[in-house]
């Protein structure tokens, strides 16, 4: 199993205004799997995701990518460009939907003709073709999230990070997300997902990690996960899964 890990962090410590918000001895992300991170509010899920996706490099500890230690003082641009993140509350840039989806490719200096083709292809998959010329500021939150999913997937990332992508969405959008997500992610893609949605966990999860007050409480394959460990509040709904 060890050779299957694509990211490993060791002895991570993250402080926010002198308050320790994350303390993790060991955490791994399995290659080509759906890795779920669950936990209550303030358990450090998003902080961990920021560190794993190299968005946040201001912490103590080590991060290994395919066994190689990552230098935190470096910009790590090449590695970052293999990753994509879908945020809970997506930020779209001033401009139309096309511009927003094309942006990651533009940053990678892709040819404009290739960009055109790729944007159209991904927009068709996510059913937002009709929105391409529309200004990003006129979209509903469901549409915004779809655009941000397209923007994250257009680079065909090696690892896709998803931070509670459906928390702010209505039922219809969640269903769309759940039913399309597995198709959008290719076999070679690794997914790290922070989620509360038990249907998502049931549908997608291969490996699950429970965080509690900034540290890993439990981390194992979905089959032998003891859902009672979620604690009061989350315990009952999660228990229905098994």
């Amino acid at each position, binding site marked *: 199993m060890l050779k299957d890990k694509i990211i490993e962090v060791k002895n991570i410590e993250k402080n926010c205004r002198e308050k320790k918000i994350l303390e993790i001895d060991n955490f791994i992300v399995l290659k080509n799997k759906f890795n779920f991170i669950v936990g209550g509010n303030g358990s450090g899920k998003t902080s961990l995701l920021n560190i794993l996706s190299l968005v946040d490099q201001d912490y103590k500890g080590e991060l290994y990518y395919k066994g190689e230690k990552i230098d935190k003082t470096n910009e790590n641009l090449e590695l970052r460009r293999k990753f994509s993140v879908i*945020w809970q509350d997506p*930020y779209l840039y001033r401009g139309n939907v096309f511009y927003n989806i094309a942006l990651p490719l533009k940053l990678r200096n892709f040819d404009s003709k290739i960009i055109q083709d790729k944007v159209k292809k991904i927009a068709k998959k996510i059913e937002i073709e009709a929105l391409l010329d529309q200004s990003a500021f006129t979209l509903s939150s469901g549409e915004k999230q779809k655009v941000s999913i397209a923007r994250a997937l257009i680079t065909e990332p090696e690892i896709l990070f998803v931070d509670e992508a459906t928390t702010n969405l209505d039922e219809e959008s969640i269903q769309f997300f759940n039913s399309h997500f597995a198709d959008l992610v290719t076999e070679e893609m690794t997914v790290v997902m922070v989620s509360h949605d038990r249907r998502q966990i049931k549908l997608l999860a291969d490996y699950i990690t429970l965080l509690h007050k900034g540290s890993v409480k439990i981390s194992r394959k979905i089959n032998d996960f003891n859902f009672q460990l979620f604690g009061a509040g989350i315990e009952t709904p999660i228990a229905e899964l098994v």
Partner: protein
Amino acid sequence: MDYYADAIYRALKLIITLDAEVIEVVTTSLKISTSSTLIASIISIPLAILIARNKFKSKKIINIILNTMLSLPTVVVGIFVYSLISRRGILGEFELLFTPIGIIFGQVLLIIPLITALIRNVIFSMDEKLYKTAISMGASRRQKFKLLILEARYGIIGSVIAGFGRVLGEIGVSMMIGGNIKGVTRTITTAMSLETNKGRFAFALALGLILLSLSFIINFVVYFLQEGKNYAKR
């Protein structure tokens, strides 16, 4: 009443017939103001981003100084620059006194605090997610900077235009540093002051009307860049 009606009539005539002297003064003014605004912007934009985006110890005091300098009287800048570039000053050897470059130098100093403070506020009010998203999309440091400028472009342009309005309408620096030399350093404001004293009221009024129109256009543009009703749609 005849006095006013006559003055306005003659002023409008000067403008409509494109009087050579009026045109000369207006072009000198625009040339000098445009140059100083451009130079001040090149310095202020990175400076504002630096102040808005970085945490450092002296940040608080820098912000207070910056806010104080917003209301800097033009004559104070005038005296200061005069002391630098007059013959006995540190920069005396460059002989900048009574030259357009001297005025530009003074005006740049005058509006750097204004443009910097305005852009700082624009950058400060940007959504924090903008930076996180840029990193997660694979932006390099330079690309992140570019994205930020693009995202704040309307606010930045508005701030720069506000700076332009300030230098176009100032008289202290132009008078003290420029010396009001005809065809060289005579700007709209210094010419107005001089011509009024000389009793050429219509001529001064014509320049006043032009200055007022320019101010109106500037404010019109700034309003639509910052608060226009279609703001959300861009």
